[in-house]
């Protein structure tokens, strides 16, 4: 099954989803399709002003362009997802996922889809890490 991960660029979630037999829907995957496109219009990640307009499907014009541009890429991933894992409190939401407002909106979009969803918290101790991985494993193994 296609599992949307949040943060969408997380190494940990990407690895675990694959490790337990599913296909992660990640930001890197989406970016890869864009940057390998021979017609690069807007380096580095080839998000064009037109993409930002497409983001209007998810958020109005009064929403900053950076949010609409992000939603233009993540939104379709959420639309495509058959299940999702959201990790809260991740201390590493840099890079592509640096905008907290976008993160909140994407979480909401996932919840609205009513697909199987696992919400976990970033671990702060060994015990929490064990809980996290076992929950993820059980969730993924339970997906048909």
């Amino acid at each position, binding site marked *: 099954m296609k599992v949307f991960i949040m943060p969408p660029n997380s190494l940990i979630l990407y690895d675990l989803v694959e490790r337990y037999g599913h296909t992660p829907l990640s930001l890197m995957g989406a970016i890869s399709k864009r940057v390998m496109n021979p017609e690069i219009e807007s380096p580095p*990640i080839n*998000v064009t002003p037109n993409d930002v307009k497409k983001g209007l499907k998810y958020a109005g014009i009064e929403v900053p362009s950076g949010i609409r541009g992000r939603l233009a890429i993540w939104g379709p991933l959420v639309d495509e997802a058959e299940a999702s894992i959201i990790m809260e409190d991740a201390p590493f939401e840099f890079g592509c996922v640096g905008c907290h407002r976008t993160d909140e909106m994407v979480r909401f979009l996932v919840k609205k889809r009513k697909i199987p969803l696992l919400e976990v918290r970033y671990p702060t101790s060994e015990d929490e890490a064990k809980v996290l991985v076992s929950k993820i494993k059980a969730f993924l193994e339970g997906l048909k």
Partner: protein
Amino acid sequence: MIKIAQLSCGTEYSGVQSEIEKAATTVGAKMVFPDVEASEIDKAVEEFGFTPTSAQLKLMIARAMAITDGRYDADAVFISSCFRCAEAALIRNELRRYVQEHSRLPVVTYSFTERTKSGQLLTRMEALVTIVERKELLARERQVGLTAGIDSGSSTTKAMIMRDNVIIGKFWHPTGEVVGSAEEALDKALAEAGVKRSELEAIGVTGYGRYTIGKKLNCQLIQEELTTNSKGAVWLADRQKGEATIIDIGGMDNKAITVRDGIPDNFTMGGICAGASGRFLELTAKRLKVDITELGALADRGDARKVPMNSYCSIFGIQDLVTSLAAGQTIEDVAAAACQSVADQVYEQQLQEIDVRQPVIQVGGTSLISGLVKAVGNVVGSKPIVPPNSQYIGSVGAALLSSGFLEGHR
């Protein structure tokens, strides 16, 4: 290669990163991202004292500190975030202050939309590069030899002839065809000075038409208006040393520049809304059926508070003024309200991006409208200095700086 450190959020996802880089490359600079370790980020945020929720803004803070601590080498700083993002706007401004307090690097801030193009950023980037690359030239305080300066603005073209730090000829007129207007202004200024074009030792040009004119007239100096106007303003106001703020409300765009010893260290440019420009006052004068040169004196006698204005817009705002006239307000009050409207908008849109330092020097054609100067004084808290020949700042700056190219002169 000049390294401009980019502290930003949202540029790639707004599709404007390539435009930023294009603008930098055009002026011989390159955008760089200061390296920071993940472990430094929390520490930097704690030291800064403002903890944004968005991680990218935390990274911006850590990167700024890497520059101010000298751990990362950059020549100038470009701080940018999405237009309308409140969280980023707070960080953008506070980081700008932090960088200015903790370094001597020139800084410019910019809030972009997906429509931002490299052209809009070019003058800003060019100014950053000029400040870094031409420090020695910008430190020049006296004009030497016989030089001319041309300022090709969107509304008017100005020319100035200077000899040994004295203005000997000047002329201004509305801009028509760019090169033709410049040549005519230059020739008229030369005639007033009583010298021939062939006698000129150097010509400097600034303003919108600078590249075209510079090429045609073989100008020694072709320079953006931010640094040129700063030099012109401090020369005219005799404020070459110390700090000052220069406000130039132009025909199409406005500039607010803070300077230290005549060299800009922070500036903003705006040009989105005609309601915040000299054009608004021209339209007002037309509706009041008075000449633009009379508007200032009328406004001086009026009371802006008597005219309710619901909009800064050059269409709806003017409509408010017309309605007030119909309701029996005097043209003096309406003129004052128009001036206050422009000043208020400059204050809200531009002076928020810099820290106003006294004295404020108001320049440009609109500084001749006394009512506008008074209105600007209302918003900045003290009456701005309007130096003689204040509409000629660009051409004075260009004449002064171009004399720096004369060999054998100091």
